[in-house]
């Protein structure tokens, strides 16, 4: 824990000092800011300090962060609050909640908020990969803040033991199988002691599944978010590949693999290669007792991964002054310098090219180049699955994926069922 903590502490201390110097002026505009603490404790402190520092820079605006649990909890809270007429002013929510928020008539597009050319330029300063989940119908509804992609972590020691080049991760689907076979170890009784590769599938398997579909050259939904393509042959093929890793090749644990224990499985050398979020970098760096590498996911027909993580949203109920203040706050939070510091402290991908050009970031990656992998993969990244009635549609796909991974349905059957359910739900939105 010492390394990430020290990074956190440094920022926290810096910001805290700034905050201490701040004199709070007579409150004019108060912003309620819902923030999902899905990332654990110390982050709360950073957010508090950032809010305080913002208040110092912007007398007359007060920010009240509300820590609202996981992403799931937060969207639940936000929507119930919106229904009750006491929506927050600003919130960080999963980028995939965009359609839900629009359908609830909860948010305003940033296009309606920005006035100056400078502000308009700011809107386009982020990686396009991150903007796919933030725009629909020609408007920008979210601003990237804590974003991630799926990357591959591999255990260099186990690679060496298996006679593989520890510096060269598998580059494509066939190599993944080939390496996986070499990396999978069995004891005398034939029980597996180390799996070659592990892709978690509890909770939100659709996100990890999207790595395979993207690599197989197909997207799961249209840009309007009212149509899905779960039963397309390429999708079924991608699922077949995932299922085969376990059922045919025996290099992947059977059944549904728990997301929460996957990093631990990696630390325990129970899995030689794992797929997980870039947001895990700090954790893995601190806890892996061996040399590990971070790489882009192996390519199928192409390289690819979905993006993930949270965006800023500004809510509708607020007065023009509050919206202006909210915009100021979002801009302040996403300046290149702050984006860089945030990325270093948490492991999320810094959201704008300019952030990577800051001295802070340059110095950090000079020591520890792993974060650049996620950045470079952005070029091949696609939008995370997001539709109207997102939770429901996603559940339909998740259920299908888990059924196929458990062998209770064939990939084809599972995806056909998921598609039928999604059709039923989305019909109303066409």
């Amino acid at each position, binding site marked *: 824990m010492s390394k990430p903590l020290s990074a956190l502490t440094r920022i926290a201390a810096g910001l805290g000092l700034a905050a201490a110097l701040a004199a709070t002026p007579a409150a004019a505009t108060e912003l309620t800011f819902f923030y999902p603490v899905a990332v654990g404790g110390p982050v709360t402190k950073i957010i508090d300090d950032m809010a305080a520092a913002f208040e110092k820079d912007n007398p007359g605006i007060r920010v009240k962060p509300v820590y609202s649990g996981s992403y799931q909890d937060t969207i639940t809270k936000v929507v119930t609050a919106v229904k009750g007429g006491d929506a927050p002013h600003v919130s960080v929510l999963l980028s995939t909640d965009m359609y839900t928020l629009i359908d*609830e008539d909860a948010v305003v597009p940033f296009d309606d908020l920005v006035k100056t050319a400078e502000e308009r330029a700011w809107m386009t300063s982020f990686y396009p990969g991150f903007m796919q989940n933030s725009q629909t119908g020609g408007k920008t509804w979210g601003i990237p803040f804590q974003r991630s992609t799926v990357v591959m972590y591999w255990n260099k020691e186990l690679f060496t033991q298996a006679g593989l080049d520890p510096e060269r991760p598998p580059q494509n689907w066939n190599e993944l199988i080939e390496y996986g076979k070499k990396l999978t170890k069995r004891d005398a009784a034939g*029980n597996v002691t180390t799996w070659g590769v592990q892709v978690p599938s509890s909770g939100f398997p659709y996100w990890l599944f999207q790595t395979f579909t993207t690599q197989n050259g197909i997207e799961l939904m249209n840009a309007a978010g009212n149509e899905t393509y779960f039963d397309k042959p390429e999708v079924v093929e991608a699922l077949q590949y995932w299922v085969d890793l376990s059922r045919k090749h025996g290099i992947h644990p059977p059944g*549904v*693999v728990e997301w929460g*224990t996957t990093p631990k*499985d990696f630390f*325990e050398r129970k899995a030689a290669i794992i797929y997980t979020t870039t947001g895990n970098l700090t954790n893995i760096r601190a806890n892996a007792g061996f040399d590990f590498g971070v790489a882009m996911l192996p390519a199928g027909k192409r390289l690819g991964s979905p993006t993930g993580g949270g965006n800023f949203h500004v809510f509708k109920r607020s007065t023009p002054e509050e919206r202006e203040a909210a915009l100021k706050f979002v801009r302040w939070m996403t300046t290149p310098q702050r984006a860089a510091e945030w990325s270093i402290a948490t492991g999320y991908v810094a959201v704008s090219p300019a952030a990577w050009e800051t001295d802070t970031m340059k110095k950090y990656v000079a020591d520890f180049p792993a974060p650049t992998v996620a950045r470079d993969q952005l070029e091949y990244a696609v939008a995370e699955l997001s539709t109207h009635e997102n*939770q429901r549609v996603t559940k339909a796909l998740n259920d299908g994926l888990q059924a196929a991974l*458990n062998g209770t349905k064939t990939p084809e059957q599972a995806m056909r069922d998921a598609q039928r359910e999604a059709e039923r739900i989305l019909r109303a939105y066409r």
Partner: protein
Amino acid sequence: MSTHPLGNSGPRAALHGWLLLLPAAVLLAAFTHYPAVATFWHSLFSTPRPNRPAVFIGAEHYRDLLADPIFWTALNNNLIFAAGTILPSIALALVMALWVNERIAGRGLLRLAYFTPTVLPMIAVANIWLFFYTPDYGLFDQVRGLFGLPAHNWLGSTETALGAIIVVAVWKEAGFFMIFYLAALQQIPPELREAARLEGASRWQAFWKVTFPLLMPTTLFVLINAIINAFRLIDHIFVMTRGGPDNASSLLLYYIYEVGFRFWDQGYAAALTMVLLAILAVVALFKFFWLERKVHYQ
């Protein structure tokens, strides 16, 4: 009710009686009776959306429900969950109570051991159970490993997820029920069992002939509680499986939470709640018209 009118009857007593009842009655009506009725009412309306206010749709939610495979899975799971938790937890509670009622080594500590699940918050302990079930290096698989058995993905496979959830629920409940049995056991005069033994009954026979019938009222009480809990205990699902894989461990109340608070389809959630209420109504009728007669009171 064979109460004698002892100054607590008549109009003044009626007034006092009602006044005493009033606060509890208001709250009960507001949070038990009203919602039960309102649930039915709302189940007949579509869920309001920003551009579409709620409209009367009659039985449409119920038709959807019949066609909803997840509902049937959750219902089916819930019945298995009930079958898997009710009897084992009661039987274990009874055995535990019999043990700690006797002079057994470390009795105080044992009582505490059996009772701990009641004190530990399920939402937190579920994480610990998650570890027990983790494939390979989890506690179960470590123990199985000692016998050369292979690792198993307990929570991640369709066949075992529900069973794993059931085990945790039994663990949670049994110690709580034990307290009730223990209290009842201590009120049975030891002479009774001794008399039975003198007449040549074995310990086993003495238990079934003397002790068990005397525990019947407690068993009924515990049984009803166990049935209700079978439709209520879902905290651990939030942490351990989220209803997965593929709804294999989803229970009715968990599905209601998903539909009502994740999908915000409150109309449909109301229809689902009605199913839950109907099941409990059947249990209540069963209790009042059948079980009550089977139980001997003094």
